[in-house]
């Protein structure tokens, strides 16, 4: 819902752009202790899975996030009883990797429950997740859209998939263009059933148009002139990752905290707030952790854009 509103604000932003101005500043921030930060977004695709155990860093520290070494990381499929040990990578950069015995092995099937257990720096952290279901992508299409105030003549990609019946399925739709993951904060494309939110109640439908179209990156050339998101010859690959409702809420907060468009949209931005976490210290009085653990079922489809004449 907010996205639609932001789009509509862009027209006003144009008007005020001649008086508004933005300056990069370097404020002094409060000192803070480092916390364990977990990036545990794994899935049921065959092949290796990575969980990153890192530390938070000062906000303006622009180096790679520091990895935690010597931790023990395991994921248990509590439905099947299977335990998957993640071992520290040789690079010792905080990556912990599970490599299946056979290249077709998967970590579970939709409906399975999982528990993550991390022992790091003398403390034990846990998180649970349930693998949801992801609908099959029926097709990917490209349509031509004539030039308008915001876009030149453009080709827009759309993915076609139908949310299965039964309310409460949540997804993260991730897009790769020409082999590059579209991963800017503004490109986080999440759905509650086929709509934006639980309240929208879009159960069992084709994904709502703004979600279908959110696989189009906004691109500019070196002169900041808008480009068509896709041109003949480009390839697009779309994955639907099932996420839990708490991961959906978490990503909603991540979008609010990171997708700052600046300019006039700031008038209507929510104040900065901490995002949620499902990583808990087994010792209630121990150090808190941040990050999220989610096990996704993934469906995908790809297409190379060929213009039919």
């Amino acid at each position, binding site marked *: 819902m907010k996205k639609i509103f932001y789009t509509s604000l862009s027209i006003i932003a144009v008007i005020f752009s001649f008086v508004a101005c933005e300056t990069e500043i370097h404020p002094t921030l409060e000192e803070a202790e480092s916390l364990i930060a977990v990036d545990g977004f794994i899935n049921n695709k065959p092949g290796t899975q990575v969980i990153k155990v890192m530390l938070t860093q000062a906000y303006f520290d622009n180096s790679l996030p520091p990895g935690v070494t010597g931790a023990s990381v395991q994921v248990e499929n509590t439905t099947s009883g299977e335990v998957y040990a993640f071992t520290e990578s040789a690079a010792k950069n905080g990556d912990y990797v599970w490599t299946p015995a056979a290249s077709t092995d998967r970590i579970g099937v939709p409906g399975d429950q999982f528990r993550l257990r991390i022992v790091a720096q003398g403390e034990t952290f846990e998180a649970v997740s349930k693998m949801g279901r992801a609908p099959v992508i029926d097709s990917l299409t490209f349509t031509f859209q004539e030039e308008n105030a915001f876009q030149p003549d453009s080709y827009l990609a759309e993915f076609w998939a139908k949310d299965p019946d039964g309310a409460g399925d949540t997804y993260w739709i991730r897009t790769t263009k020409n082999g590059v993951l579209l991963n800017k904060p503004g490109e986080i494309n999440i759905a509650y059933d086929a709509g934006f939110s639980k309240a929208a109640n879009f159960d069992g439908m084709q*994904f709502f148009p703004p979600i279908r179209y959110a696989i189009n*990156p906004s691109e500019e050339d070196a002169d900041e002139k808008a480009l068509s998101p896709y041109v003949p010859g480009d390839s697009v690959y779309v994955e639907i990752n099932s996420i839990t409702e708490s991961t959906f809420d978490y990503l909603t907060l991540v979008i609010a905290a990171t997708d700052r468009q600046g300019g006039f949209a700031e008038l209507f931005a929510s104040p900065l707030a901490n995002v949620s976490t499902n990583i808990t210290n087994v010792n209630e009085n121990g150090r808190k952790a941040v990050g999220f653990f989610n096990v996704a079922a993934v469906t995908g489809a790809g297409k190379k854009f060929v213009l039919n004449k």
Partner: protein
Amino acid sequence: MRYKLLLLFFLPLLASAQQKFTISGYVKDIANGEALIGATVFVKEINNGATTNEYGFYSITLVPGTYTVQYIYLGYTTDIKTITLDKNTPLNIELTSAADQLEEVVVKGEFEQPTATNLEMSTVSLSMKTIMKIPAFMGEVDVLRSIQLLPGVSTVGEGASGFNVRGGGVGQNLVLLDEAPVYNSSHLFGFFSVFNPDAVKDTKLYKGAIPSRYGGRLASILDVRMKEGNSKKMEVQGGIGTVFSRLAIEGPIVKDKASFIIAGRRSYADVLARPFVKLLKDGGALNFYDLTAKANYNISSKDRLYASGYLGRDVFMFDKQQGFSWGNTTGTIRWNHLYNEKLFSNITAVYSKYDYKLNFGDDDKNKFSWKSSISNFILKPDFSYFINANTELNFGGEAIYYAFEPAIAKGVSNGDLIDTSLDKKYNLESSLYASSSQRLNDVFSIDYGLRFSQFASYGPGTQYTYNEPERGKRKTVIGEKQYKSGEVMSSYNNFQPRASFKAQLTESSSVKGSYNRMVQYLHLISNTTASNPLDVWTPSSNNIKPELGDQYTLGYFKSLSKKSDYEFSAEVYYRATQNQVDYIDGADLLINKNLEADLLSGKGRAYGLELYAQKKTGRINGWVSYTLGRTELKVDGINQGGWYPTRYNQTHNLKVAAFYDFNKRLSISGNFVYSSGTPTNFPTSKFTFQGIPVPHNVNNSRNNLNIPDYHRLDVSLRLEGREYTKRGKLRKNHDYWVLSFYNVYARKNPFSIYFSQTDEAKNTAQRLGYGQPIPSKATQLSIIGSIIPAISYNFKF
């Protein structure tokens, strides 16, 4: 207790055994017949008097005798009448504006009842004459922007809708236009207000000591009264400015009996830009307009009828089908009736509606539409009983029927229709009030009253009950109950005592104090930096309790010279509030049937000191206002349960407004504003999730740092058109130019500071590879970062 109160009210009646007579009537402007609100009627012999009410009516009851009565209004020549009172004497007075009469521009403040001697406190009035002189943004004179130059009134920055009074939220001000509530007082997100200055007569802001006849909001009441229209002659006025053009026509329908005014404005940036901008050529629109109209009819010397209305809208369209719009519509009918020379009554009927609409998607198989509205029907009888020169009794009631349409939302996805509309809500707010103001002796005057209000929610509807698994997190639905049409779903009763006193220390100085309790049943739901047009209002329910506020004020008032050219005041206030609304992190406020599950409730406190010095007359005049204040909330689940400053907390707030007349034609005015930076949330650190740096505050504190201070200087020059033609004849037309400069020294005042990852990549090829560090940055946004000059031409004939 109840009987004692009744006794208090009627005691003065019993005491008036001696035969007395009444002088009563209306005070008006001789030039156009407009009623003068708040004019002083001063009786020398008793060193006391009365003030005209909102309709210009006054009434004084005295023992028989001969009296010297002065009719006084700032900027007007005082009229003095000698009256031999041996029967009830109706006396209508017309005063002459000093500016119309004097050769010199110097306004001789002959005499005005200074603030130090009346009972009012925490109240400020701005006449249109003053507002017209204040340097205007984009050359457009504006009521709300002018109000912000007064003590205790602030804003979070350019582009923020509404205003904050004494640490209250934007939604805690009741804005009335001819007694009709206006739910969104801004055009173009707060850059301009909805009030057309050509149609406004008088603006009064109650920040404290709020009279019993007002209720419904915690922080303030802004009472805007429209002109009645010139009852003497036809008059056309208007202006051509940088943003809008305005035109107003007023005149008599039946001379001295009935008159009208109709005033309109429209922005025209889009009209001018249409040939050049493709978006606008293709059916896009960007404009705002409003139309204000009023008529009155003097049925007899005892009855007068007023009808007024407002219609305004902001429209933003990308093309013919897509875009959004919002606006207010109000209509007011009022009937003044004099039962006798002592008992004045007014019955008001009001209709008011605020709505917005959005439409997206340009084909029928994929589209989305959403509209929302709040409508009111109000009936409000008010009575004033002028018992004698020392006692006045006011009583009446108010019934407000609310109909809410939180969302009528329809989406079509690939041909399938989804209706996500929310239940409508129906409420009735009924109030009764009575108050008495009494002058006890030469030193003490008191005003006390009581307002009782009831707020009920009616079916049809669904009532949800929630439990709260964790403080500060989303609540879960545990029960649902359906109600039939007309069934009471929830109801609240509240007594709101009001009291104030004045102690006249000397002829020119006084101490005043007040206590009042206010109740607010409607809540503005907004968790964005600035309030915006899509913010929804939601009524109190079984889950949201009415907001309560208790305010205490104490002030010292002093006139510094005999003519009261200089005035000084100092006031302190403390307001404690209950059931303040705040939000969980990640609250979903739009089209959410379980909105109440995302709301938190807590308490608040706001306190401060306001200093105000004004020079009222002379070639150079103006005021200095300073406010030292703090406003905080304490909500379980936020800021670890501790007090935190609100988004609009400002420690220091200084304003200077100055006016200088070079000569009769050329004048200059300037204002300077300084305020402490408002609080905001800064992160301490960050972590990376799936290649995205996410800001984090380890202390989980709310509003932990302030953005830099705000200051700005505006200047405007006004050149009056020549009074005489070249041949020496008096010109019939009156015209003037206004040249204004907003933000003279081009300060880049911060509106907000936001944190984001640096985003150098313009396209896919330039993107950083996955796993590379992504730098973070902080950006300070200034909505207006340069000087804005503007020119307007205004005329009247």
